């Protein structure tokens, strides 16, 4: 199986506090990789290195390498706008932009691609279909994106992310602010998306990790304790800490 992302010895600092220690992780292409661990263990921090979104904050920095398709994307020479087009991100709380459903998707497309208005409409429809949202919103494309339900908003964000042709989708607890029925829809969506995209999902929900992921990484206090196929991690963990966590003894 091809490796899409390879993190090598990532160390991450919030000011003078170190949050990640020597994280090394190989993410397989077109698979779902789940990142689990107790609160504050560095799961999200690790994920936020992959699209360099942490650079918004001046006191956060990282050392090490992050190889995507053979290129170290932490190199300042790498264009961060193009990196973020290639590596989409979905957040815990749905984050529709303050514009119409259509514009939520069309606006970012227009920033990255030159398209005729017909092509643009097609692209928006494709993205909404891929996010299984088209049937629900096709009659309210002009309505505000904020008027949709929470689950719909989250799928809108997924549609928006895939509309700009990424290769990787990072999902930071994408269902933790969403009701169970909508969660199920999003999990089904993720399973269909992995045919085209490499997905890395941070989740608090171990059942979710077990249900949808191919590989699982267990984080604890900024260290990657164990990484391997999900089936094995959940049935036969090698590390005592992993076993304690997945059996619910802490976390």
């Amino acid at each position: 199986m091809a490796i899409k992302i390879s993190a090598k010895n990532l160390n991450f600092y919030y000011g003078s506090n170190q949050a990640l220690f020597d994280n090394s992780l190989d993410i397989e292409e077109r698979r779902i990789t789940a990142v689990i661990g107790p609160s504050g263990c560095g799961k999200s921090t690790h994920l936020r290195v992959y699209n360099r979104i942490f650079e918004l904050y001046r006191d956060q920095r990282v050392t090490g390498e992050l190889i995507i398709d053979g290129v170290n994307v932490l190199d300042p020479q790498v264009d961060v706008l193009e990196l973020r087009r290639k590596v989409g991100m979905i957040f815990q709380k749905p984050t529709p932009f303050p514009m119409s459903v259509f514009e939520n998707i069309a606006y970012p497309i227009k920033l990255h691609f030159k398209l005729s208005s017909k092509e643009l409409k097609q692209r928006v429809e494709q993205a909404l279909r891929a996010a299984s949202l088209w049937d629900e919103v096709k009659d309210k494309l002009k309505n505000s994106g904020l008027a949709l339900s929470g689950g719909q908003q989250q799928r809108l964000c997924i549609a928006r992310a895939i509309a700009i042709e990424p290769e990787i989708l990072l999902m930071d607890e994408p269902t933790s602010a969403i009701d169970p029925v909508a969660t199920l829809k999003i999990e089904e969506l993720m399973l269909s998306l992995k045919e085209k995209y490499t997905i890395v999902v941070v989740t608090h929900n171990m059942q979710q990790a077990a249900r949808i992921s191919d590989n699982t990484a267990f984080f604890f206090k900024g260290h990657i304790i164990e990484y391997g196929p999900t089936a094995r991690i959940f049935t036969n963990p090698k590390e005592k800490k992993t076993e304690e966590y997945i059996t619910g003894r802490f976390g």
Partner: protein
Amino acid sequence: MKNKRSITSRKWTDRLVRAFSIFAVAVAVMSMLWVICTVIYYGHRALRPSFLLNPSRPYGIPGGGIANALLGTIAITFGAALIAVPPAILGGIYLSEYKDRRVICSILRFSATVMMGMPSVIIGLFVYMIVVVSSGHFSGFAGSVALAIIMFPVVMRNTEDMLGLVPYTLREAALAMGMTRTRTTLRIVCFAARRGLLTGVLLALSRVSGETAPLLFTALFSDSWPTTYFSGPTANMPVLITEYATNSPFAEMHQAGWGAALVVMLLVLTINIATRLLIRGQADGH
């Protein structure tokens, strides 16, 4: 049980505090109503079509109105908004979006606080020296400059506060889509906060539209139409009210002063109520 406190005395304390707060609210509301009623009582008799449509006339000549002063005030306050709002919004954006540049931001914030506490008469005097004296004449424009200086820190701090209410995840989401920082700020963050920003501008406008002291040094007054905005003294409501109410021996002018006060009050109330409605719309999510 020993050492038990009397329930009766606790209840009485409760009632006493409640009574005091109700009394305080009543005093506040009553004073506001008193002011409004007084202005309406004395002002409503002046409100005739000719009063609203004619320009003011010199002392003693009957039949004057306030049309020129109303237009002048509109020109001066909107001129002030044109001067103050763009840099104030940009300053607010800097304070909110680049707050990790702590030294610059704290200097900016401290200056704004000082400016907000500055008596407006001093600002009038300053603009008198800088604009009126150097140009050799009073002008409506000089009045706009003075009001702009008063508006600037108010709008800037409001912009900072309103942008601060936009959740950080929205910025991250925009950046994560490959947007630049500038585009994220202008198209996503400012747009999400647009009602709040507009509210701040409107409140600042309504606040300065009644400022009198700075205009006495800058726009002064004139009985002509406000075509002299750049070139000479320009009619405006606050100075008209001051002059008519305190500087005239004629009863008709006193009444015109009250009428003008009523118009200004209605104008400010309208802006304020419109602003409240805007804020309510914001709270509904869109």
